[in-house]
């Protein structure tokens, strides 16, 4: 039956709800903060998984799309229109109800474009850029494709690092919250923690369902045939260029949306989000989750980002991601979350947790 394949999705939703109830009951709600951030990063990784795992196109510059989304939204929502009267566009925006007036952190009145406008602008901009870049880039293969995407990522990094508009090295701060409906808003306000957790989880679930359907559809089958052999796919009459471009743009949009929402959740964005290391860590997580494994990517994405954001790896953060890359590729190229590997890992983790738990009793 059609809904049977959605069982993992229902399980995911159940886990989300149960976890949130558990932390609230145990007064440990602060865990939700890093989980929310990790969830947004996982959106990027989900898109990248389909691009790399199913379509077989490596992208070493995906953090650039995240940054494009985040920075676009940041720039648009931090333009204070309070004193801009008489400018045609500003008045038009006001008339259309697209502006929001509120108080900023210092108690001053500010007026800025609605974050929905910013979201739309960011998505459109990212899609256009991905489309334009994708056409020439996807003609390349292997190392050339990797270097071209890496180069694209570096160019975006240099642009946000070097431009006044993007705050140069300091990035953009004091970004207003993203109000959705009533008091529901994407922001770092601790009181809204639970809501934000659900918003992020909602986006992730939607993303997973979307991609699951995509993989099972005609598009997905075309992608897998391209991954298998591009010439054969071409010979079968599949317009490989169009499908590759489609999935490239789609994964870029995923990253862009994640960027927009996380920027509003964090209240700020810096050039480090477009960094080469960020792109490489996304690739690392896709690899360790199993190249073509949506659920593996999601789980590893959440876990690794969560640990990294909580500082578990301390100063060895980059070292951890680097070793993951090497170890996985040498020993477990098909990823950790194939069943046998998963069971072995689960056993090891249980042993570890037991010994840790014994040590923690004070």
């Amino acid at each position, binding site marked *: 039956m059609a809904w049977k394949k959605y069982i993992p999705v229902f399980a995911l939703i159940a886990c989300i709800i149960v976890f949130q109830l558990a932390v609230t009951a145990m007064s440990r709600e602060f865990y939700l903060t890093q989980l929310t951030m990790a969830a947004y990063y996982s959106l990027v990784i989900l898109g990248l998984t389909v691009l790399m795992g199913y379509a077989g196109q490596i992208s070493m510059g995906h953090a650039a799309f995240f940054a494009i989304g985040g920075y676009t939204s940041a720039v648009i929502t931090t333009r204070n229109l309070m004193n801009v009267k008489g400018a045609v566009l500003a008045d038009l925006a006001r008339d259309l109800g697209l502006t929001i007036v509120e108080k900023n952190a210092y108690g001053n009145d500010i007026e800025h474009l609605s974050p929905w406008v910013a979201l739309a602008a960011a998505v459109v901009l990212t899609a256009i850029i991905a489309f334009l870049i994708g056409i020439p880039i996807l003609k390349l293969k292997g190392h050339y494709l990797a270097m071209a995407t890496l180069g694209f990522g570096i160019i975006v990094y240099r642009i946000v690092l070097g431009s006044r508009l993007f705050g140069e090295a300091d990035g953009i701060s004091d970004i207003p919250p993203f109000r959705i409906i009533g008091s529901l808003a994407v922001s770092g306000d601790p009181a809204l923690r639970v809501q934000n957790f659900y918003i992020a989880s909602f986006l992730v679930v939607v993303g997973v369902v979307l991609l699951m359907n995509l993989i099972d559809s005609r598009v997905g089958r075309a992608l897998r045939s391209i991954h298998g052999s591009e010439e054969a796919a071409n010979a079968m009459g599949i317009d490989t260029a169009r499908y590759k471009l489609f999935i490239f743009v789609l994964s870029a949009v995923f990253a862009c949306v994640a960027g927009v929402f996380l920027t509003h959740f964090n209240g700020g964005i810096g050039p480090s989000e477009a960094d080469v290391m960020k792109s490489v860590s996304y690739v690392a997580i896709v690899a360790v989750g199993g190249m073509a494994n949506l659920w593996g990517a999601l789980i590893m994405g959440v876990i690794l980002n969560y640990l990294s954001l909580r500082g578990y790896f301390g100063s060895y953060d980059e*070292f951890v991601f680097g070793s993951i890359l090497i170890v996985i590729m040498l020993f477990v190229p098909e990823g950790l979350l194939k069943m046998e590997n998963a069971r072995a890992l689960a056993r090891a983790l249980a042993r570890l947790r037991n010994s840790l738990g014994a040590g923690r009793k004070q």
Partner: protein
Amino acid sequence: MSFEHLLQYVLSGITNGSIYAIVAIGFNIIYNTTGIINFAQGEFVMLGGMTAISLSAFMPLPLAILAAVIITSFAGALIDFLFIRRLKSPSVLNMIIVTVGLSIMIREIALHIWDEKVRSLPYFTGNEVTSINILGAYISPQVLWVLGVCSVIVVFLGLFFKFTLTGKSMRACASNMTAARLCGINTRNMVTISFMLSAAIGALAGCVISPITQTQYDCGTSLAIKGFTVAILGGLGNSTGAIIGGVIIGLLEAFSISVMPLAYKDAIAITVLLVILFVKPSGLLGTREAAELKEF
């Protein structure tokens, strides 16, 4: 622009360009023999410089440099033994990921051995303030060392590949791995030697450029990217192309200062890379067949 300025820019461009060319040649050597693009190439340059700096504390400079080159080439061999040999018919994606992971690991290990401080080797001749006047342009004598050492490396490699047995065996592997194996050449060892050779020339370049640019644990990454750009510009696998490409990129970067803000200088190499990849991936001197990726 006066003649002196022109010459100043040209000299600056050629100096940087030669280092890029050496890194690119390092890429080419490994690529030719194995089909792998070694993203950790820049780290060899950094390791050579750092090791020489540490060693120069208790041995004379030339000896320290020689020891550093030898140690780094053993590091290259170690990388081959530990990681590359374990790859069983990997996909291109796997190889890229492994070498990227290697470059990160080496960088972090260097961070923990040498910490984040910036160091440099002493100038080979003269010191920080000596300056030579060439037709109105002023350069440090170290610049002449860089140009000299790079030329010697290129000549040496040319002779090595043309006249020695090992060199010819490596060329055979580059041409056709299976045929080389059938001729009795131990291709596994050739792979190791190619790593050692790449590491050695990278280390030497790192030593000679250290007084000018200083060495830091993360100086390898941008070098690798520019070196790769140069390698592709000249045609992947083609060392003459690498030299020409290096000079071109170096000059472009040097002259770019006169027309655009300095902060975007690094974007030039990337832009050139993208343009080349989009227009003619086989590069200036490469052929279509060479541009087709090799099998490992």
